[in-house]
């Protein structure tokens, strides 16, 4: 997961790029069998350990998802952690520092 957080004034733009297949469950493979859905369902962002944003996603979010949001009141040096959880129960957390 790549996270960039840039502060400008009292607002911080956070851009996140996650590596995930985001399989919809609609596609079929060469043998005509449906490829099972595999996608990120929950995304949580926290600032210095405090949750600031949660999002629920469906399979219609693109492969290797991108998300951008704006934080209020964060300053350089603050820690941003982003966690995702997919429908197989796998999860991943990454951290970045506001610059």
């Amino acid at each position, binding site marked *: 997961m790549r996270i960039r957080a840039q502060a400008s004034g009292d607002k911080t733009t956070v851009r996140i790029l996650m590596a995930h297949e985001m399989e919809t469950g609609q596609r079929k493979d060469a043998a005509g069998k449906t490829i099972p859905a595999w996608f990120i369902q929950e995304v949580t962002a926290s600032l210095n350990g405090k949750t600031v944003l949660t999002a*629920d996603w*469906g399979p219609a*979010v*693109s492969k290797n*998802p991108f998300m951008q*949001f704006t934080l*209020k009141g964060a300053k350089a040096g603050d820690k941003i952690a982003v966690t995702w959880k997919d429908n197989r129960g796998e999860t991943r957390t990454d951290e970045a520092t506001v610059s």
Partner: protein
Amino acid sequence: MKNRRQILAQSAALAGLVATAGWLPATALAYSKDAFDAKSVADALKAVGAGAPVESKDVTITGPDIAENGAVVPLSVATTLGGVKQLMLLVEKNPNAVVAIFNTSEFVEPNFTTRAKLGQSSDVYAIAIMNDGKAFFAKKEVKVTLGGCGG
């Protein structure tokens, strides 16, 4: 947040009770599965418990007029209204209308960008659900060029 072991234990305990219902309570606790199963915009709003949406200038959706690749369409949802609980991104003609639901908080601006898949040319919606259950929406048409050659 529950850890995996607790969720599994809970699922096992309740699996027998809800086997006929077709879903496990562990996933329904946090994740609004009903909304993502909804086939249409109206059904999705019902699933999240919002009223009939009213078109509003204070809600915006930003995206391309023509998308060459329907698999990666950058879309932004934003609002200038105060007291927003959730911002939803929907694509009307996708098999399941809801793309994403962002739960806002006082620490973030109600302005989110992500990339969505569009099965075909469709209206895309941004819906802001307020704390009192009212819903405001904005829509935009995005054309998807088939074949991905930009023609």
